[in-house]
């Protein structure tokens, strides 16, 4: 019992054990509510909500009216849950970063390779995030909504996406790490 308790408190688990947990969550989503997990859609819902409030004319298009109607959807609630899940996970290992100095540039490897500049980290991450969300739109989902959710049903789409993601991820890492790859 104590061993289990100690394991829960570990910062990083075996990826196999964490993967089993995610697999069970994927099954639960289908079994309980006949739906799939996904994260990228929630940002579309929120973007539509903000956009329609700020510039209703520009956001009065097919996409925000019919394809991804704005609102606090279950996808949004799921992402809120992910937020708290991350929080609980970090809390159990005492690694929460709220209010800590290094939380603005949180990764040691990043700092070692690209330096301590927060602006640099934020700028590149911001561009990366825009690319991620746009790409998820084109592909029909992200790592959770397409790769995991589609993959577990054996949808070819998921494996095309995963192949593309690894191919370009490797090339991009090669380019930005250069000699330090």
């Amino acid at each position, binding site marked *: 019992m104590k061993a289990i308790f100690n394991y829960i408190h570990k910062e990083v688990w075996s990826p196999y054990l964490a993967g089993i947990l995610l697999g069970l969550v994927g099954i639960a989503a289908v079994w309980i509510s006949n739906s799939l997990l996904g994260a990228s859609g929630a940002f579309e819902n929120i973007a539509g909500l903000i956009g329609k409030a700020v510039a209703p004319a520009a956001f009065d298009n097919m996409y925000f009216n019919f394809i991804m109607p704005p609102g606090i959807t279950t996808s949004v609630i799921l992402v809120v849950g992910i937020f708290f899940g991350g929080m609980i996970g970090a809390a159990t290992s005492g*690694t929460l970063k709220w209010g800590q100095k290094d939380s603005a540039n949180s990764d040691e490897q990043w700092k070692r390779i690209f330096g301590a500049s927060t602006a640099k980290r934020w700028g590149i991450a911001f561009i990366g995030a825009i690319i991620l969300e746009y790409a998820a739109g084109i592909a029909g989902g992200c790592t959770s909504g397409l790769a995991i959710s589609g993959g577990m049903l054996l949808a070819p789409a998921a494996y095309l996406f995963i192949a593309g993601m690894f191919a370009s991820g490797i090339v991009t890492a090669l380019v930005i790490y250069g000699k330090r790859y």
Partner: protein
Amino acid sequence: MNYIVALFLGVFFGFALNKAGLTKYNKIVNVFRFTDMAVLQFMMTALVVSMSGLYLLRGLGWVTFPSVPATYIVGNLVGGLIFGVGMALSGYCPGTCAAGAGEGKLDYIVPGLLGFLVGAVIYGLTYEAVFPAISAIANYGNVVMPDLWNLDPFLTVTTFALMSFLLFYLIDRAGWQRKEKSE
């Protein structure tokens, strides 16, 4: 899906992402550098578990599959190719960024969540010019491989599982990971 179920699924999902270490920049990027394969081990394990469970439950007649993500070859592949660039630059994907934000990491909360919203706006505003065209090429619809290629579903799942176990063996036992360069 109702709100309560969504919230609980999300919490377990985020917890798993945190414990797998995927809310760290280095974990995501290092799979592309072959120095830490946790992302691949985590994803493949989740796939084997969920795939086995769901095909078994469907075989027993206890679940029906929800709408399967659509296969349109060029769009899925090009989307993946662009996605990988974003992953290697930022060290997150939408799910891991939400979990990392919950941990209180400012470099997830600000550029991450904000970037996704900006990306979503750009996508929504250009959707009509891009998506209908790209998703029309080689579109097979909401299909799964056993149906598409007329394979036995249980044999397909078993093959997938065995291939994954072989991959895990190669990574763990046969030392397929490259050692991190010493600085």
